[in-house]
């Protein structure tokens, strides 16, 4: 083998090249799942259990009937589960950082943004799976669409757009955390109260004092409302659909605007 031939050196990476490199790196994450299918069950069993527990244990007490509760809760459950799955972006990134894979990638002549973009893109596959899974389980238990397939697809797209923005929160956690386990601990500690102090499981009106005020501005409530509107339609869902959809997109934009630069800054400091 002749290694010493002087290769042609190009001055920069084009955006098309960068996109191709990101997709190659996304492929890597999908291969990881293929090698370790247990990782999929990590984020598959728990949501199924949650849907079952909430529907059959709490449903009757909260809504008077398990099927009414399922209709109310399922869109929110999809939101909650998708957010938890998004934490895997941070865990994967943290593993790459601590194991040195990230430095290997940075030493290659690839676009500077490709390693991060590849990681986020790959996890959209996991997020989509989490949405389909919870919806599928819900439909098996009797959840019925009140709108059309278009409404459902709209909800899925909205969820994935929101997940894309929320991925940057996970990136920040992944960069700041010392090891992958801590990403999970930190993520859960922050996400559990946020998802429970929302209208995912119970309507805000039932809560005391200042809590409803917080619940109503909580982006998780807003996104859950948007999904209810898109999946159930206005007869079942009491609010207007357009407002929560637009507010969700505004929240996604705000999260992106704050956390993307913050994450990139933290990453530059760490490497």
């Amino acid at each position: 083998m002749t290694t010493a031939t002087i290769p042609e050196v190009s001055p920069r990476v084009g955006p098309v090249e960068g996109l191709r490199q990101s997709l190659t790196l996304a492929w890597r994450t999908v291969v990881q799942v293929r090698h370790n299918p247990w990782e999929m069950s990590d984020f598959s069993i728990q949501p199924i259990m949650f849907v079952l527990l909430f529907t059959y244990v709490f449903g009757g007490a909260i809504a008077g009937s398990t099927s009414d509760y399922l209709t109310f809760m399922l869109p929110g459950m999809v939101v909650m589960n998708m957010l938890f799955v998004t934490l895997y972006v941070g865990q994967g990134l943290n593993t790459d950082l601590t194991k040195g894979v990230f430095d290997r990638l940075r030493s290659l002549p690839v676009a500077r943004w490709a390693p991060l973009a590849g990681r986020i893109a790959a996890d959209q596959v996991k997020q989509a799976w989490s949405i389909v899974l919870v919806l599928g389980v819900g439909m098996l238990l009797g959840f019925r669409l009140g709108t059309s397939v278009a409404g459902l697809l709209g909800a899925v797209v909205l969820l994935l757009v929101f997940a894309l923005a929320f991925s940057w929160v996970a990136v920040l956690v992944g960069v700041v955390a010392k090891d992958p386990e801590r990403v999970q601990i930190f993520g859960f500690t922050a996400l559990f109260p946020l998802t429970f102090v929302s209208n995912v499981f119970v309507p805000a009106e039932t809560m005391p004092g200042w809590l409803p005020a917080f619940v109503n501005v909580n982006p998780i409530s807003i996104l859950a409302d948007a999904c209810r509107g898109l999946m159930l339609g206005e007869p079942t869902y009491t609010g207007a659909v357009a407002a929560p959809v637009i507010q969700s997109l505004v929240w996604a934009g705000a999260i992106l605007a704050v956390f993307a630069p913050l994450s990139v800054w933290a990453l530059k400091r760490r490497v």
Partner: protein
Amino acid sequence: MEHAIWAEGLVKRFGQTTALDGVDLAVRPGTVLGLLGPNGAGKTTAVRVLATLLQPDAGRATVRGYDVVRQAHQVRQLVGLTGQYASVDEALTGAENLVLIGRLLGMPRKRAKQRAHELLAQFNLGDAADRAVKTYSGGMRRRLDLAASLVGRPPLLFLDEPTTGLDPRARSELWELIRNLVADGVTVLLTTQYLDEADALADEIVVIDEGRVIATGTPEELKAKTGGQSLAVRPAESSDLPTVVSVVGELAGVGPDVTGDLVTVPVSDPHLLPAVMRRLDEAGVVVTELTLSSSSLDEVFLTLTGHPAESQDESEGSPA
């Protein structure tokens, strides 16, 4: 002549720590430069700067004439990097890791696969090609790391402590692979804590300590400079210690190191041993130990720096 790697006055600080304190380097094309130093000397930081992973706070460095800061993308196309931090993905198989890198370097799928299998065969990993890397032994892992940095056939190779933690057999296997690459004309920058490794592989050695270059030369020159051997004397009576120190120090021309009752000093002249014996005998000092042995890196450091090579577990560079 144009240097393959060239650096002048490189400075890198991490908070209060100065990892590089004005490092100059020059490596001719097709040669091996051994960067030798103890833990925390700044070796890894130097490699990371030259591989464009870190930006220097001051100074300039070029690889094949390309500036490592302003023309980082060009440098990355010329350099293959192997180190404890520049690693492969443990969840993927050996073949998948190499294909991934080939694809990232812009190879079509078929060529990336072909190149991966070529390298796996060459590095004696053919049987393990389809096993997850986390099942590999330490030696296999390092060979794959090395293969991963060669996918794009880079004309330069940076190896950061390539054999640290390997058993002697895996170590000599890796040395052989590195020698083959050099025979193909690859320029190698190698960091190591081991004098014998630098001796076995390097055309030229740069010794660094506390971020500064403290000696440069061929292995032969360095050994001549540092003695290459070590004399140890232990008096039977502790009260004779000052006499031993003064006799040994006078004859060796360097201040000896005293640990407990043991007096050690680096020496270059083998005739010193009988001279020391004669003088101690004349002084009536009885010794229980008198040995001449090959210098360890510690002794080389003692000679070059005047202080022992500290082997504390202080990690180098950034916590990445």
